[in-house]
Every structure is written in structure tokens, then in C-alpha cells.
């Protein structure tokens, strides 16, 4: 590759790299590497002057290859590929050396870090000489969109896209859309009624001419790639003929089977075996819960069928499998509430009057089981004193290290509502009060002014074992008040646990289905935590709302809109660039053994019977290269990751390491 003219650019990244790596020495050293024509260092290569430097050098010095040593290619490979393209250089003739995430940030010794940077640059220089220009494939984008999850984030995304004139398929696993927000009574900090602001949006989404709603449905399978996904949906049998059903509710009324509703009513209310989860449900079509229905259990009953005025009950209905074509997918699958039973010392599930936050939400909800009366579990007694415990399952190394972000504000809201509805004394047990968003701290000040007692300290236990006079028949909250340095025992009638948010129990499974990743806490991982918060590493799959991490309603709505904007921008482009790094078979050397065919995860390899050779269908190939590793006659090449390129990258690194072994590096200051 004697004709290669390589330009090397070493980035300081402010002090992120230059603080540990002697970037000037790296640039100087790179000058002597084979085929290097120019080698420079600069403060911020990703800035416009940095990119212009590359563009100018390509044009003026006739560079045919470019190496940038800076951050991870996951961050700025597209940036520098763009700079090369603008200067007329094929973007696949660019290579990146990761000397930040994989060097300066992880190496303590400056000399060692500099040597490692030099090796990584040498590897990239050695590799880039063998890189070949590639042409990207452009494929049209299907303008239809799939939104998974009908909570507030999913609804927001759906409406934004539908309003722009594109068609949205909204899939929801529960019988109604609305998500957790539909369960709430009031929303902080404005205390406006949750249903009043959410239900119009739910109705709009369902009635929108550009929305097809699938409730009681789940995504079974996802195939394809950005612009061209094929999605299989299982629409579970409702045992109700939807077009015939008028939503009159007679079936629900006549059904003799009462079931504890542990989804919508959070376990404190009942529903029937045929039910509409709540009066404002969308769609207003009931579902027969097969596991609890007397007819499905014993073969007799059919009360609902007898009384249904339109004959809409269909016991023989079966699950429907629906296949959809979409170009983009937004996941807005939400969160699960931390199960406070996991902290036995707080007594949830054991002590009657310990409530979870969602139970309390249902208790205060005017449409809830007590019609909004704040009462103890007996259904009549109004509490005279209430303790609210923050950070249940959050900021706790035994459960979740993270802050669930909503619980402080939620607890303050609870304090306000208890005061308002019962006049009880309220004690908040907190670690820190975190009220960082707009008008949140003002709300805290307001609750402080209402006479709520704040005790700073993590609660040790909640017990009904009285030790002192005045504790009999009460729940005693034992905590250290860290502001006065004393143990305190506060007897109360009711305890509310402000439970944290956790990733959905099946988040991992969903992530695998859609080809995205989960963090250690199983939240979906975004492409970049700051600059690309709703995209994922899989093109065409976006995330919004609490499935990406704990968030309140405003943040979820913002993400719903953001994901919609990202999708609409892709649709607006009309076509999408597909990575050109696909595999190709050398028919001259292929022996037709067909070992590669089962190795391909995408079934993209066919066997040409006439030639007795393998053949890769380029449009199906995703460029993983598994066939290359499998091929026994070394007849498959993965473009941009060829043996020649990878071996030379390795040799570049090895040679420099051997060089440093032979001579001590002297850092020139």
C-alpha cells in the first residue's frame, strides 16, 4: 500500500486526553509511521476548526487515508466520516484510535498512557492503509411507525407522529392504554388531576385517523432493520367481539366472579372476571380474564353472554397473529414499582396499614376503591398520623443504588394530600430532599409551610410492637434523626412507602427482542446519555419514558416527543443509509461445503446449486462476520473488517509494543 497518504490527528479533548497522554509526543511519533504524510495534534478535533483541518489537509496534501486518535468511535466516528466525505474522501478510508475511553481515562501512569496511545495510533495507521472505499446502500424508509407501550410517553409519541400525517401502530399489553399515569389522582407540582390531563390524550390517540390501536396485545417477533421492520403482534383473545360491543358494562355488572385487581387498583380494589380496568379506559371494551372466569374454569355460567344486549361475548375467540411493516419503532414500556415486600423490616404485606405508593395513589383517587377517602385498611378509620418513608428500594446498596427521581416529589404530594383530606400529622423520613425541576422546590417549601414534620434519616424498621406508652395499637417508625443525632420512635396510624421504580421484570427479554441493550439495572441503554438520549445502538429503535430510567411525567412526555421527532426526521429523509460493511464470497476458492449457511443469524447465505458455491444476499447481510470466522477455505471476506485489515491493525499494535519493550520511551515535554 505504498500509494496511501495518511493524515494522523491526535485530539487533546481539552484535558481529557492531554491531561494523561502527551498528545504532542504521540503526533510527533506518528510522523515516522509508514505512509504518514502529516501528523497533528489539536485541542478539540470534533469541533468545526478540527474537522476543517482534516478537510483542508485532504484537499491540499492529497491525503487518501485519515486517522483520528480521540474518543470512542461510538461517539465521533460519524462526525469524522462526515468530514472526510465533505472533502471528497470515501468515509470508509477513515479510522479511529480510541485513546480516551480506552486509554487516558483508564490509565494512571502518564508514560504508559502515552505509549498505549502510540500503539493504538500505530495500529490504526497500519490498518487504514488497507481500508477500501465502500459505497453505502440506501433503502427507502417505511413511513409507518410502531409504538410499544401506551403510557403517557407512548401516547405522546403516537400523537406527535400521527398528527404529522404518518400512521402509528400503538401496542399495549394491558386492556387499556394510560399506563401508570392513569392510576394517579393528582400530579406534582401543580396538583392537577391526572385523569383530566391524560384521558383526553388517550381518547385522541385511539380515535386518531392515523392510529391503529392494539390493546391486550404484545409484540412477539421483530425482524428486519431500520426503515424495514416486520413486526409480529399477538392480539390476545378478549372473548369480546369488539365491533359489536358498545361498552355498556352490563357484562361487568352481571359477572358473579370478583377478583382482586392487582394491576390497576394495585391490589386494594376488586374487579370482575370480565372487566374494563377503569371507567375512562380506552378502548371502552372489556376483557374476559380467562384464568378467573367461571365458564373457562367449570364450563358453566355465561352470565355475561346471557345479559349482553348486542351478543358481543365470544367464548370461542382465539388469539390473532398480526404482521405489520414499519420503518421505525419507539419503545415506551415503562417501569415496575419496587416490591416493598423485599424489605421485610418495613412490614409491607405483613403489617396491615403499611401501604405502597401506588396503593396510596388508588386510595386518594376519586375513582378508586374508597372514592378518594384516605382511610386505613379497614375501610373506615381515618388516620390521625401518617409516616411517609422515602427511598424505599432506592439509594440502597442492598436493592438499587440509583435515585428513583420521582419519590421525593411524590412523597411531598402525599403529605399535602393527607393533610388536605384528613388533617393528620404527617412525618416524612428522608435521606435528602431532591426537588430539582421547575417549580418543584417551591412545592417543597409549600409543604414545609403546611406543618409536615421532616425527619432526616433512613428508617430502621416499622413495627407494631409497642414499647412505650402511647405506642399501643400504632405502627412505630424507628429511625435515626441525623440532624439531632438521636434515635426516634414515631407512632403513627398509617405508613406509606415511597417505593422506587425498577425496570420492567421482562425488560431484558424485550431488549433482546428489539436488539437493544440493558444497563446493569436493566433500564434500556440510550445511544448517548447526553447527546442522543432517545436513540439506541440499533438504528430505527428508539426509547422514551421510564423504560430508559426513572423519570416523572414531564420528562416522559418530553422523551415521547423527542423520540417522535427523531422518527419523523428519519421518515422525512425518505431513505436510510445502510452500513456497507457486508460479507462477500470469493467463488474461486469456495469449496461449496455449506458450513457458512447455518452460521448466518439472518439466513442471508444461499447455495448456488448450479455453481456449487455459497452466495451472500447483500440486502439481508448485517455484517456480523460470523460466516468469515466459520468458513474453512477462507473464502468469505467481510468488507471493512477483512483479515488483511485486522491482521495489520494487530501487527501495528504488536510492533510498537515490541519497540517500547526494547527501548525506554523518553517523553519530550
Amino acid at each position: 500500500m505504498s500509494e496511501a497518504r495518511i493524515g494522523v490527528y491526535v485530539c487533546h479533548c481539552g484535558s481529557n486526553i492531554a491531561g494523561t497522554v502527551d498528545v504532542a509526543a504521540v503526533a510527533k511519533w506518528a510522523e515516522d509511521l509508514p505512509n504518514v504524510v502529516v501528523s497533528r495534534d489539536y485541542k478539540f478535533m470534533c469541533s468545526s476548526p478540527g474537522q476543517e483541518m482534516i478537510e483542508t489537509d485532504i484537499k491540499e496534501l492529497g491525503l487518501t487515508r485519515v486517522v483520528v486518535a480521540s474518543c470512542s468511535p461510538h461517539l465521533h466516528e460519524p462526525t469524522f466520516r462526515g468530514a472526510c466525505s465533505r472533502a471528497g474522501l470515501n468515509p470508509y478510508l477513515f479510522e479511529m484510535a480510541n485513546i480516551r475511553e480506552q486509554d487516558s481515562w483508564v490509565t494512571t501512569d502518564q508514560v504508559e498512557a502515552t505509549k498505549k496511545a502510540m500503539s493504538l495510533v500505530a495500529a490504526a495507521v497500519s490498518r487504514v492503509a488497507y481500508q477500501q472505499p465502500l459505497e453505502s446502500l440506501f433503502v427507502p424508509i417505511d413511513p409507518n411507525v410502531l409504538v410499544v407501550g401506551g403510557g403517557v410517553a407512548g401516547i405522546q409519541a403516537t400523537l406527535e407522529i400521527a398528527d404529522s400525517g404518518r400512521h402509528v401502530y400503538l401496542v399495549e399489553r394491558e386492556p387499556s392504554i394510560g399506563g401508570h399515569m392513569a392510576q394517579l389522582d393528582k400530579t406534582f407540582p401543580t396538583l392537577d388531576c391526572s385523569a383530566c390531563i391524560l384521558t383526553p390524550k388517550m381518547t385522541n390517540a385511539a380515535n386518531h385517523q392515523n392510529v391503529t390501536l392494539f390493546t391486550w396485545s404484545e409484540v412477539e417477533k421483530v425482524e428486519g432493520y431500520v426503515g424495514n421492520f416486520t413486526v409480529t403482534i399477538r392480539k390476545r383473545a378478549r372473548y369480546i367481539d369488539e365491533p359489536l360491543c358498545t361498552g355498556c358494562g352490563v357484562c361487568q355488572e352481571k359477572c358473579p366472579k370478583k377478583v382482586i385487581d392487582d394491576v390497576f387498583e394495585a391490589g386494594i380494589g376488586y374487579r370482575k372476571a370480565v372487566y374494563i380496568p377503569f371507567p375512562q379506559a380506552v378502548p371502552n371494551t372489556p376483557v374476559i380474564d380467562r384464568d378467573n372466569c367461571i365458564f373457562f374454569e367449570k364450563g358453566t355460567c355465561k352470565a355475561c353472554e346471557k345479559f349482553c344486549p348486542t351478543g358481543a361475548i365470544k367464548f370461542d375467540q382465539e388469539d390473532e397473529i398480526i404482521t405489520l411493516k414499519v420503518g421505525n419503532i419507539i419503545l415506551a414500556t415503562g417501569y415496575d414499582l419496587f416490591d416493598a415486600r423485599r424489605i421485610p423490616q418495613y412490614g409491607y404485606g405483613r403489617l396491615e396499614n403499611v401501604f405502597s405508593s401506588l396503593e396510596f395513589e388508588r386510595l386518594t383517587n376519586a375513582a378508586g376503591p374508597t372514592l378518594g377517602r384516605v382511610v386505613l385498611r379497614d375501610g373506615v378509620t381515618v388516620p390521625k398520623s401518617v409516616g411517609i418513608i422515602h427511598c424505599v428500594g432506592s439509594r440502597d446498596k442492598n436493592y438499587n443504588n440509583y435515585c428513583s427521581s420521582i419519590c421525593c416529589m411524590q412523597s411531598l404530594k402525599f403529605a399535602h394530600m393527607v393533610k388536605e383530606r384528613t388533617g393528620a400529622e404527617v412525618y416524612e423520613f428522608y435521606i435528602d430532599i431532591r426537588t430539582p425541576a421547575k417549580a418543584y422546590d417551591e412545592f417543597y417549601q409549600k409543604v414545609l409551610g403546611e406543618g409536615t414534620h421532616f425527619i432526616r434519616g433512613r428508617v430502621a424498621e416499622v413495627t407494631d410492637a409497642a414499647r412505650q406508652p402511647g405506642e399501643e395499637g400504632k405502627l412505630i417508625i424507628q429511625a435515626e434523626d441525623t440532624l439531632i443525632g438521636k434515635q426516634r420512635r414515631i407512632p403513627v396510624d398509617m405508613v406509606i412507602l415511597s417505593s422506587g421504580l425498577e425496570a420492567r421484570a421482562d425488560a431484558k427479554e424485550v431488549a433482546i427482542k428489539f436488539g437493544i441493550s440493558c444497563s446493569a439495572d436493566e433500564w434500556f441503554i440510550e445511544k448517548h446519555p447526553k447527546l442522543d438520549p432517545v436513540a439506541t445502538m440499533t438504528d430505527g429503535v428508539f426509547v422514551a419514558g421510564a423504560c430508559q430510567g426513572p423519570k416523572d411525567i414531564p420528562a416522559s412526555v418530553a422523551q415521547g416527543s423527542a423520540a417522535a421527532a427523531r422518527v419523523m426526521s428519519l421518515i422525512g429523509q425518505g431513505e436510510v443509509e445502510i452500513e456497507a460493511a457486508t460479507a462477500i464470497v470469493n467463488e474461486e476458492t469456495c469449496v461449496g461445503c455449506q458450513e457458512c449457511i447455518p452460521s448466518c443469524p439472518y439466513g442471508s447465505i444461499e447455495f448456488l446449486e448450479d455453481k456449487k458455491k455459497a452466495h451472500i444476499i447483500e440486502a439481508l447481510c448485517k455484517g456480523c462476520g460470523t460466516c468469515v470466522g466459520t468458513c474453512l477455505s477462507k473464502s468469505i471476506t467481510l468488507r471493512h473488517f477483512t483479515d488483511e485489515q485486522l491482521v495489520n491493525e494487530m501487527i501495528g499494535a504488536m510492533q510498537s509494543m515490541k519497540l517500547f519493550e526494547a527501548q525506554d520511551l523518553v517523553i519530550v515535554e
Partner: protein
Amino acid sequence: MVEPKIIGFLCNWCSYRGADTAGMARMKYPPNVKIIRVPCSGRISPELVLRSFREGADGVMVLGCHIGDCHYGTGNHRTAKRMPVLKKLLEYNGIEPERLCVDWVSAAEGEKFATLIREFTETIKALPPFVEVIK
């Protein structure tokens, strides 16, 4: 003690991002491993590992996504089958199989990545000097 020279072949989607995660969390680990990014651990043909040893690597790491997490679905299944055979081949040729580290690192597992690098570097340091048998 001579510092071991190690080549790491990391898949783009999980383990390379896991290495980035270790960086973002500023976890410290020895500088011995030079990382080569490949799309999938399934791309890592045995020849790439053998060639690294031939060029003088004291150790080679092959890191991929956890089974079930592969960005391409099943690419790493091949790695899981291929690499144990390669270890046997190394042993047959007089190369300690411990010189090849095969493991799974997710994008979130920065800590696991840093720990693997620390442990593998120590393992290689503890082995007798690598005799280049192939050359």
C-alpha cells in the same frame, strides 16, 4: 518483569462498549491490552488469534456479548463453540491455553471488563516467558 503484550478482539456492540463504560467510569486497569474492534465475536476466526501469537502476543482476549444478548442474535454461539476447540489446539501446539481469554462482557459491565483485564494481565505475567513456537 517484562510487561506482557496482549491483543484484545472485542465485539462492537457489547464488550467494546463495556470497555468504553469502564472508561466513562474512570476505572483504572493496566495498559497492556490493545483492543481491536470487530463487529461480532463470531467474526474472530481462529487464524486471527493464532496470527497474534505468531506476531509475539503474550496473550489474546476474545470478548463478546453474553449468550442471548448478541446484537446479531447468534453470532456469539459460534464463538462459544469455536474458542474451546482453539484452546485445545493451542495446547497441542505447546501454547498454554490460559494465554487465550474468552469471556462475555455486556455494554454495562465496565467493572467486569476492568477486572478481566487486571486478572488476565496478572495471569499472563505469572506464566513462564512465551516461547514463540511457531516461528
